[in-house]
């Protein structure tokens, strides 16, 4: 239940992000929308790895190495999300750099103004 809720929220965030990216012509707003979609993706992934009733994949006093397999949740999605988050921020930084340069060039952040290449 909880998982499905989180996952559905994640997907909803993705869709909201996409909608924002499709309906806003302001470059910065589009980038903001994409970060929301990124958060949604992360949420979905973490939800995939979650298993009800288990603990975080860290061995400590309560979770011994021997019975880890029965106690912890799947660590793989978490590892992947870590990577995804960092990549996401990298892409965001790059898009921001683009936005800056585009603004520098045309003094506008309206994507509809950058259509000199077409057809």
């Amino acid at each position, binding site marked *: 239940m909880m998982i499905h809720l989180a996952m559905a929220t994640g997907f909803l965030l993705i869709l909201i992000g996409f909608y924002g990216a499709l309906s806003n012509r302001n470059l910065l707003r589009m980038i903001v929308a994409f970060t929301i979609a990124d958060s949604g993706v992360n949420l979905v992934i973490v939800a995939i790895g979650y298993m*009800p009733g288990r603990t975080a994949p860290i*061995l400590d006093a309560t979770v011994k*190495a021997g019975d880890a397999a029965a106690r912890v949740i799947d660590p*793989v999605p978490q590892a992947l999300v870590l990577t995804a988050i960092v990549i996401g921020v990298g892409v965001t930084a790059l898009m921001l*750099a683009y936005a800056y340069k585009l603004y*520098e060039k045309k003094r506008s952040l309206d994507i509809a103004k950058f259509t000199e290449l077409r057809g």
Partner: protein
Amino acid sequence: MVKRLLALLLLAAIGGIFTTLVLGYMPDAELNNTARYYADHTAADIGSANLVTAIVITYRGLDTLGEVTVLFLAAAILGLVLARGRRQVQARRELTPVGELLTTGSRVLVPLIMLLGVYVFVNGHLTPGGGFQGGAVIASGVLLLLLTDPLRQFAHTLIAAVESLAGVFYVAIGLMGLFLAGGFLDNRFLPIGTLGALFSAGAIPIIYTLIGLKVGAEFSVMLSDLSDTEAL
């Protein structure tokens, strides 16, 4: 309006795909084959208490190397892009001084924040957190400095050197794994030690330290590049 409607229609269709995925999803009752392997073998093979760290640094170390490279790229590109917009030292305008409180606070806080960052990545194999989180914390320390004293000249070359050296060493340690142990980024060319100890898990603490330094440096470069840039 037509565009919005079309967007909604398309997203509804894609939402349909997503809904199917959500409804078809059943959480596993047991760990799958891969996860089970990690749960069973990490302690013995890698010596890291934090399974996620073990995966991130060793099993999927190549991903992490790529991830670091992504930030490296972003920093490099940002640096290049903003190079032209960077304001000249002479042409600086006077900024209104920031409040005394913030300045003093930051002088106290920054070392603490830095220390916290180091702690986070050094203990990456034991507790939650690691190089990335620690790096981000360090960068936030830098950010604080930037906020309190926007005119502070950062030793760009120093940060860049830290970043590059960390990267080079990271690759070098990966290669040592290749030569001295079972493969590229194998952490076991150093002793694994006891599970839970600070100096354990082979090269993981070193790698995470390097990552932490590198990520911290990269974020710092980005932030300082941006803050040095002239407003348009």
